[in-house]
């Protein structure tokens, strides 16, 4: 009987099953708790289905524990954002054995047995980041530093690959330093970047940062050296921090993956499954390891620059109050956010 | 007794779990007198001392100080009443030096800072007065001291304050001949100044030399509480080892 679980509705349809969603963590990105959870809750409540939403807090064992307890609790549809393919596959295997339908949310579980896949394309995100940096740099020759996500996170690898696939083709750009940031730790990122910056004597014209948090860390050092706004930095997730930095001109771009949109797609598919129907798909995705095509609902990420920050606010990705607090009110107004 | 006791305990019982260590112990300390507390190993002497000092809380029984009932909940309370104790297990901080240990809990201050200079001079004088000449420096950590040197520090630490009752639990056990002499003299001197002194010792020669009264504990019970002049060495040894001697001692053992 907690306030945000939906099973207090006594009028929920008896024939509909119960939906379980396991979110991955609270640290790599804020979206899971601040966007996905409310969007999903809203959709489920409207549909009147029973549901449970939990966060594994970055711990694969914990995710397995949660899955066990959700199955014990009688969910019939289980959606997970895996922390890595193998742990995800093992959860899906257990679920399948108990007759529970599974959906891969946001991240495909390679070698898994999910019935559906709902996501943005991660390699595509990396490509957008690469293209964004290319645009900000223009035709100049540029030394580029890469600040990747956690070395233990496969998505970080995909983002980086996507970005490299764009930037490596451009012969004007030189990779002068590349480091992965353990656990996406923003504090460590500051030191790591400061040292890369010092190593090349500040001779840097562009920075690939895997998400807005890391971008913020980079900008902190650029400010210290009077370079903020002069050296373009990429980001991802369209967080308040990232968007504010874009408005200020310190950050070149971010990538918006509308959680509302994605959560809506998930909710729709899950509700359909819970009611015993099929979900509508718009393609398939290849699971290279499991050698199968997974029925998919794929969404397109959006590149965000100063010009279209407004789109994120309009979509509900961030609230205007948060974004336009204090000093940023004027910048917001300039960007047409009212 | 003509004078009233300075400190008096009545009907003290103390158990550790299932082990009943003190049985209805009555004990009194008179001003200007040395009371020797004797008993076999494990008789309960140290337990009694720690109960007086507030280290242990008694299960039952009442304490009176200068005739008034008092509650002692911890060493702090005992110190506030003017009770000072030299414990058998010494209780020194091995990580501190001699000066620091001697003034622990009553450091001398000079404004906001510790007055190290004064403390150091006073510590040095005190040790000299107790015939300790082998200590190289009073800034030495007590961990590096010899057994007797440690004991001297513990004595110096507790005896040199303005107090009304001093309890010494086997203070001369590890001391050399000269140092023992000094401590016995000190004990006598303290009593002559009007303090109540309790001396625990297994050395009957020392006990008979300085004590005015002797209280004997036998298996946690008071076997006898007599004036020194009324008993002989042999009688006391019998009281210690058997609990009774002639018509002195416990009724049925």
């Amino acid at each position, binding site marked *: 009987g907690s306030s945000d679980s939906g099973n207090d509705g006594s009028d929920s349809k008896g024939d509909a099953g119960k939906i379980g969603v396991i979110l991955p963590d609270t640290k790599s990105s804020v979206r899971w708790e601040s966007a996905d959870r409310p969007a999903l809750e809203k959709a489920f409540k409207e549909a009147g289905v029973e549901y449970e939403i939990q966060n594994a807090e970055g711990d694969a064992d914990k995710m397995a524990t949660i899955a066990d307890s959700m199955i*014990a609790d009688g969910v019939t549809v289980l959606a997970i954002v895996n922390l890595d393919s193998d742990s995800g596959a093992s959860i899906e295997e257990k679920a399948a054995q108990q007759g529970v339908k599974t959906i891969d949310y946001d991240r495909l579980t390679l070698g898994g047995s999910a019935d559906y896949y709902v996501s943005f394309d991660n390699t595509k995100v990396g490509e957008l980041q690469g293209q964004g940096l290319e645009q900000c740099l223009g035709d100049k020759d540029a030394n580029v530093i890469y600040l990747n996500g956690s070395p233990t996170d496969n998505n970080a690898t995909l983002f980086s690959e996507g970005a490299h696939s764009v930037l490596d083709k451009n012969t004007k750009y030189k990779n002068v330093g590349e480091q992965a940031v353990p656990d996406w730790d923003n504090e460590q990122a500051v030191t790591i970047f400061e040292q890369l910056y010092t190593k090349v004597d500040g001779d840097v014209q562009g920075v690939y940062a895997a998400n807005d948090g890391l971008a913020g860390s980079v900008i902190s050092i650029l400010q210290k050296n009077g370079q903020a706004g002069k050296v373009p930095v990429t980001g991802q997730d369209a967080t308040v921090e990232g968007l504010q930095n874009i408005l200020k001109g310190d950050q070149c771009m971010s990538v918006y993956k509308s959680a509302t949109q994605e959560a809506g797609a998930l909710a729709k598919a899950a509700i359909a499954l819970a009611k015993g129907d099929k979900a509508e798909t718009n393609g398939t995705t290849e699971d290279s390891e499991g050698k199968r095509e997974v029925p998919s609902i794929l969404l397109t990420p959006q590149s965000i620059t100063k010009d279209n920050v407004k789109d994120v606010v309009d979509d509900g990705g961030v609230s205007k109050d948060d974004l336009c607090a204090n000093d940023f009110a004027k910048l917001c107004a300039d960007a047409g956010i009212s | 007794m003509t004078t009233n006791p300075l400190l008096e305990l009545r009907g003290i019982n103390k158990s550790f779990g299932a082990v009943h260590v003190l049985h209805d112990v009555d004990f009194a300390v008179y001003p200007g007198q040395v009371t020797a507390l004797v008993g076999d190993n494990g008789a309960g002497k140290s337990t009694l001392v720690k109960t007086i000092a507030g280290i242990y809380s008694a299960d039952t029984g009442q304490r009176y100080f200068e005739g008034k009932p008092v509650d002692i909940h911890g060493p702090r309370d005992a110190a506030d009443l003017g009770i000072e104790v030299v414990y058998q297990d010494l209780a020194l901080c091995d990580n501190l030096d001699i000066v620091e240990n001697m003034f622990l809990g009553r450091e001398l201050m000079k404004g906001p800072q510790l007055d190290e200079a004064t403390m150091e001079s006073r510590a040095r004088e005190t040790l000299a007065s107790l015939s300790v000449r082998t200590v190289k420096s009073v800034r030495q950590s007590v961990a590096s001291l010899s057994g007797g040197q440690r004991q001297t520090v513990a004595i110096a630490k507790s005896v040199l304050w303005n107090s009304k009752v001093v309890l010494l639990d086997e203070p001369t056990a590890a001391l050399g001949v000269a140092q023992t002499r000094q401590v016995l003299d000190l004990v006598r001197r303290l009593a002559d100044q009007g303090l109540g002194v309790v001396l625990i010792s297994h050395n009957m020669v020392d006990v008979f030399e300085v004590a005015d009264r002797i209280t004997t504990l036998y298996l946690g019970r008071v076997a006898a509480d007599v004036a020194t002049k009324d008993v002989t060495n042999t009688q006391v040894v019998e009281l210690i080892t058997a609990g009774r001697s002639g018509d002195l001692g416990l009724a049925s053992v």
Partner: protein
Amino acid sequence: MDSRQTTTLGEAWQAYLNRLRGGDMGALPATLGLVVLFIVFGSLSDTFLTALNIANLITQAGAICVLAMALIPVLLLGDIDLSAGVAGAVGAAVAALAIDDHGLPWYVAVVGALVVGMVLGAFIGALVAKLGIPSFVVTLAFFLALQGVLLKMIGQGGSVRVADPVLRGITIKNVPVTVGWIVAVAVVVLFAALTLLRHRTQVQRGLAHQPLSLILVKIAGLAVVVLGLTALLNVDRSRNPNFPIQGVPYVLLVVGALLVLFTFLLSRTRYGRHVYAVGGNREAARRAGINVDRIRISVFVICTSTAAISGIIAASYAGKVSPSSGGGNTLLYAVGAAVIGGTSLFGGKGKARDGVIGGVVIATIANGLGLLNQASWINYVVTGGVLLLAASVDALSRRRRSASGVS
């Protein structure tokens, strides 16, 4: 003379109360904490006390119980091993890769993991004992370095699958019902026989002993727990009629066997006695002719190799080893488990069972919270709060001990 030589149950109970009052509390305080947790979660969630969830709890607790147990000998010396979690993951990765890449059978892989654990432990122990670097620093260094090794072995963002049916089976398979019953009965009978035999010898030779009645109560208690749990777990707990799940999870046998082994090692052998002695007073142990350095090295060898078993259990449960396995707060939780169980970080005081009881406490918090479905910040707060609750039940029931001056 000996307070334990009482004979009737009433007297025994009185003696037991006295011992409690005297501070000799045994496993009671930690168990009490656990009972409180069970009551709290049982009343908050209908699912918590079902057979399915109890079985889940057992599998979830496996890895941390073993890791906490692995740490006990190290903690008994007043040392700490921050690297045990990651070292266990390295061991598990070795085993998984041996099977995956080299097609070796599972038992060879497990032996490989154990050997890797031993070698790492010997290194750590030698640095601590021979060079005299504080174990906190040595194992912090290994904690970091081994994360690098793991990352190298598994590859950035990758993971190694544990597909071997035996290893995977530790946590997802169950002992056949009849075998489960046989084992359970055997355990109870063996325990009864051994304690009664011991008691007879003690009485015959006039030694300190517990009253017969108390021993009978203990045997009865064990029988109720073991047989009750077996009965509960031998019922089909599946929600899916086509897929029956019944029997005792294999992992329970592994933990049980290790508990017996560690308890024997620590309380019945010369080696164990020496571990306690070195932890209680290192100088006294040295003066008694005990080779202190050898003992110090050996506990790290034991710790790290047992951690490898814990790593394998964790890998079996997650179905894989990833570069972050054994990292994060794994070790803090395991040390916390041992401490909640009653082991002291200052050395000299602790038992193998402390790790198991504490491990179950920690796993219960995660399990119970998992059923309550709260926002993640609430989960953090509640985890901390419940941990504190369990620990304060324990602390309060131990209080008299210090009140009676035993410290």
